[in-house]
C-alpha cells in the first residue's frame, strides 16, 4: 500500500513537472496560442465545453468497447477453432497476420462504402484491429497445456468437448487477458482513427476523432488539446477496467494476477 502511494506520488510529480515545462516553453519562446495553448487555456476549454467533450468521449468509448467486446468474442471462437489441429493453424494463421498488417487507414474508406459513415463503421474498425492480439494469445494459451494434464483427462476417457471446455479453455484464460489488455489500447486508437474518417453521420456531433478534426479546422487548439487529453484518459480507463477484470477472475488461483501490474 505504501509503495503504491509512493508510485502515485511520483506520477503526480512528473505530471506537474511536465506542465511546468510546458508553461516555461510558452513564456520563453512566446508561442502563439493557436500553435500551443497554455495549460490554463486547456483547462478552461475543458471546463467551458465539458458537456460536448463528455458526449464525444462517451461516443468513442461506446465504439471502442463494442469493438473490443465483439473482438474478444470472435477472437476466442477463432482461437478455439485454431486449437483443434496443427493443420488448421498452419493453414489459417497467416491470415490473422494479415489482420495485423493491413493498413486500416487505407481500408477505412472501403469500410465506409460498405456500412456507411457513423458509429457502425467505427466500431467495425475497432473490432478488426483488436482481433489479432486476442486470437494469437488465446490460441497460445489453448495449446500450451501441460502434457500430464492432457493425459489425466485421457485416462478418464474425456471427450473432445470436455478436453476443450474443462481443460484448454480455463487454462487459456490468463493468456486471453494478456490479449485483451493489448487489444484494449488498440481498440481505443482504432476508434479514434476510424472517427477521423467516418466519425459522424450528422454534422457537428461525433466522437473524439471527429471532434479533433473539427477543432483543428476551426483553429480551436485549446479544445483540440482537451480532446487529445480525453482520448488518453479513455485509453487508460480501458486498460484499468481490463486489469480489474483480470484481477477479479484470476487472483484466487493464478500467480501472476495477485498484484495488478501495468506491464
Amino acid at each position, binding site marked *: 500500500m505504501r509503495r503504491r502511494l509512493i508510485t502515485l506520488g511520483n506520477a503526480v510529480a512528473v505530471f506537474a513537472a511536465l506542465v511546468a515545462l510546458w508553461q516555461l516553453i510558452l513564456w520563453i519562446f512566446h508561442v502563439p496560442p493557436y500553435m500551443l495553448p497554455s495549460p490554463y487555456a486547456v483547462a478552461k476549454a475543458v471546463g467551458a465545453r465539458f458537456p460536448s467533450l463528455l458526449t464525444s468521449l462517451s461516443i468513442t468509448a461506446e465504439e471502442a468497447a463494442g469493438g473490443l467486446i465483439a473482438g474478444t468474442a470472435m477472437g476466442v471462437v477463432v482461437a478455439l477453432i485454431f486449437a483443434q489441429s496443427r493443420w488448421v493453424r498452419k493453414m489459417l494463421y497467416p491470415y490473422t497476420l494479415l489482420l495485423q498488417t493491413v493498413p486500416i487507414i487505407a481500408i477505412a474508406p472501403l469500410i465506409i462504402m460498405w456500412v456507411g459513415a457513423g458509429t457502425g463503421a467505427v466500431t467495425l474498425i475497432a473490432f478488426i484491429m483488436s482481433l489479432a492480439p486476442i486470437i494469437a494469445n488465446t490460441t497460445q494459451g489453448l495449446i500450451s497445456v501441460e502434457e500430464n*494434464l492432457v*493425459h489425466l483427462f485421457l*485416462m478418464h*476417457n474425456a471427450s473432445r468437448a*470436455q478436453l476443450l471446455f474443462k*481443460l484448454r479453455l*480455463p487454462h487459456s484464460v490468463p493468456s486471453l487477458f494478456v490479449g485483451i489488455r493489448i487489444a484494449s489500447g488498440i481498440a481505443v486508437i482504432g476508434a479514434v482513427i476510424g472517427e477521423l474518417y467516418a466519425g459522424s453521420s450528422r454534422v457537428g456531433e461525433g466522437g473524439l476523432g471527429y471532434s479533433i478534426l473539427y477543432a483543428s479546422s476551426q483553429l480551436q487548439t485549446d479544445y483540440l488539446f482537451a480532446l487529445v487529453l480525453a482520448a488518453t484518459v479513455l485509453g487508460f480507463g480501458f486498460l484499468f477496467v481490463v486489469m480489474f477484470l483480470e484481477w477479479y477472475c484470476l487472483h484466487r*488461483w493464478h*500467480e501472476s494476477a495477485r498484484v495488478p501490474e501495468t506491464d
Partner: protein
Amino acid sequence: MSSDVEVPMIQFAGVRKSYGNGQAVLDDLDLVVLKGEFVTFIGPSGCGKSTVLKLISGLTPPTAGTISVDGLTPKNARETISYIFQDASLLPWRTVWQNVGLGLELEGASKDRRRETTAALLELVGLSHVAKAYPRELSGGMKMRASIARALATSPRLLLMDEPFAALDEMSRDRLNEELLRLRAEQKWTAVFVTHSVAEAVFLSTRIVILAPNPGRIHAMLPVELPPERTAALRSTPEFDDLVGKVSRTLREALTS
C-alpha cells in the same frame, strides 16, 4: 495381501518400445503383475520406468509385443485405472474439492455421488479443512494428498504412480508412504509404482523390479518378504535394512551390466 487364487492384472508379452530414432527405450519385457500385488519399478534414469506406466495406461502404444490389463487392451481398461503423476497435476483454477471430483465429473457421475465420494475421500486423506482452497495455497505434501484422493475417487482397481513423492521432503514422503499402505489395505487395489528411492520401494512393495538401462530391460525381480501390515517401525528393523542393502547392490549391478 496376496489372494489364494493368483489372477493376473497386467500381462506384458515380448514388449518393445522405441521412439522416432529407432533406439529401444524398453526391450524384451515379459512380466505378469497379479491382482493385489504392489510392484515397484526402480532403476537409473533413462531405463524406461515411466514408459512402463505409459504402456500400461495405453497413453503410448508398444512398438512390438502385447499388453493386457484385466484381460482388456490398455485403452479399454482405463475405467479400472487411475494414474498419479509426479507433480500432483492439479488444475490450478479448481478448488481442492473440485479437483478431487474431476474424475467422476468427466465420467458423468451424478451430483449426489460426486458430493458423497469427494467428501469421503477428502476425509480419508485429511484434507477436509482445505476443501475450498486452491492448489496454489497448499504445501507439496497436501497437493499430493489431493492428487491421491482424486485418483481414488473413481474406485480404481489398478493404481499407477510415477514417482509421486519425488519432490517431497523425506518426512512428508515417509508419512505419505504409510498412508498409501493404509489406503491400500482398505481398498485393495493393485499398484504399479515407479521410484528412485530404494527405501521407499522396499517399504511399499510386495515385489521390486529392477531395470537396467540402454535399452531398458528387466535386470532382476526381488520379492519383498516383509509382513503385509507395515508401520513406520518397520524402517528400523534389520530385515528392512537387509532388503534395502540387497536392492541397492542389485541396482549397482544393473548399472554396470
